[in-house]
């Protein structure tokens, strides 16, 4: 039985990755799961310098999910390389670094610092809805997305994955823009922008007013977009958005994803990632699937 998949020449032992921002750099969840079992660990977004993030409250629960507005708090690339990458090096899993920035120059600075590091791929976060400057704009306009992809690709030594925002009219167009700009892969969906109001206190539930929605509630939108995006481009698609279990993971793969990420599910079940790895194997056994690659995009 083959569970491995390849993205931009990088071989993952299985298609299960972690969703950026939901798994730190793996340290906290290594209490619960063996990181060696994962296809890849995608780190929390890292910028050229430390970012303080947004004021609290940063998270709030909603029906079937949550909103977050962390604001990409991160310790900056230097600390990250010294501490987080050093930690991850101990494990037999691929490391994908999520890169954030407010300007193209900031993205490029991070990408260049990572050039000689032991990192398999870079995921470029152009779709965070919780940072005011720049980021989301890159991800909501096809021309901007093309430009930023092209500039980063020119400087990146590792393959780059452009992470797309679902808060757009036409996801296929955005996927094509990323591909045209030279992206080696795309990942989607980032969170849907949402809002919650505390009607008794007459206040926004989040200090940032809006937040990014994740959890099982957003899965149907995510599956639809993964289907549309994967049918619009030739590059591999990494699917995510509300994946809670192996069945969800397989749904995304059948829709067209080559690999998948487990995000907010980690908060609900810290064992989720490895349970999904095992659940996929179980499904393959029961359904007589010899090669996981056979189900990628099998629904037309």
């Amino acid at each position, binding site marked *: 039985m083959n569970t491995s998949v390849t993205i931009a020449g990088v071989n993952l032992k299985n298609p299960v990755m972690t969703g950026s*921002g*939901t*798994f*730190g750099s793996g340290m*906290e*969840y290594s*209490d*619960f799961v063996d990181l060696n079992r994962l296809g890849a660990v995608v780190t*929390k977004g890292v910028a050229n310098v*430390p*970012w*303080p*993030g947004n004021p*609290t*409250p*940063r*998270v*709030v*629960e909603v*029906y*079937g*999910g*949550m909103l*977050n507005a*962390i604001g990409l*708090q991160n*310790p*900056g690339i230097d*600390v990250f390389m010294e501490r987080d990458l050093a930690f991850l090096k101990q494990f037999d899993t691929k490391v994908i670094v999520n890169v954030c920035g407010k300007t193209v120059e900031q993205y490029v600075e991070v990408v260049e610092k990572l050039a000689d590091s032991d990192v398999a791929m870079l995921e470029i976060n152009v779709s965070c809805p919780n940072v005011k400057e720049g980021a989301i704009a890159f991800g909501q306009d096809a021309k901007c997305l093309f430009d930023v992809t092209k500039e980063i690709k020119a400087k990146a030594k590792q393959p780059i994955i452009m992470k797309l925002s679902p808060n757009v009219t036409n996801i296929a167009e955005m996927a094509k823009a990323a591909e045209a700009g030279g992206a080696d892969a795309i990942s989607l969906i980032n969170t849907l922008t949402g809002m919650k109001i505390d009607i008794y206190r007459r206040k926004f539930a989040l200090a940032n007013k809006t937040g990014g929605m994740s*959890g*099982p509630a957003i899965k149907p939108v995510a599956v639809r977009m993964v289907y549309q995006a994967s049918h619009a481009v030739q590059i591999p698609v990494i699917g995510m958005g509300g994946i809670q279990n192996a069945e969800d993971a397989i749904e995304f793969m059948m829709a067209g994803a080559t690999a998948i990420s487990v995000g*907010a599910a*980690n*908060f*609900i*079940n*810290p*064992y989720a990632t490895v349970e999904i790895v095992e659940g996929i194997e179980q499904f393959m056994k029961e359904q007589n699937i010899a090669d996981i690659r056979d189900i990628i995009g099998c629904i037309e």
Partner: protein
Amino acid sequence: MEQKKKQVAIVRSQEKIAEGIFDMWIQTDLAKTAHAGQFIGVYPKDKSTLLPRPISICQVDEEGLRIVYRIAGKGTAEFSTYQKGDTITILGVLGNGFPVEQGTGKKAVLLGGGIGIPPMLQLAKALGGQATVVAGYRNQDLFLEKDLKENSTLVIATEDGSVGTKGNVLTAMKEQNIDADVIFACGPMPMLKAIKTYAEEKNIPAYVSLEERMACGVGACLGCVCKTKEVDHHSHVNNARICTDGPVFLASDLDL
């Protein structure tokens, strides 16, 4: 520190001990490593509401944990219906807990306000009954006062003055001239802010336990941070994670 885990445990007993306040004992091996000021995450069974609720540990025995909590929403309302023998899904043990050693052999004063009172019980026990606990309630609808009395010198304050000192825990401390070498506190933010100021004036250490909305509970999501005076060793910005670096902080380290 023991490895954290999520597990399905069993409710040993539950009773309502005041209006909206419930007292539950949970049979779990997490008790082996739990100590005062730590907390557990409790997962609702209602699938519309998925995140664990952080609930502080009130008491620990050989085979279980006691939690005393207020109904604050759908999740806690659900927990309050659990009966002896029911399952309860928990994540633990979480957080750093109170630095008990900082209170040993000193005049330790434990300040609990409202639903911040429960963690003071285990701390009072850990301090060998030598501490003074000042518990602040809304009114005469007290809870845990018998347990606290058995394990500390108990002083009560009520907002409406129906029992003990009229006012909050600090009013009681001042009125009754309670002298402290060190303060441990848990309660609403305005109370903690006042305690921080009080401790700075008196030049004594105050360890305060903070609350914030949490998602993961284990330090990964950065949802529950508080502002710190110095750059935090983990975040490299002025934010510490309440769930992991806390919930207990030295008040003077915080920018509340």
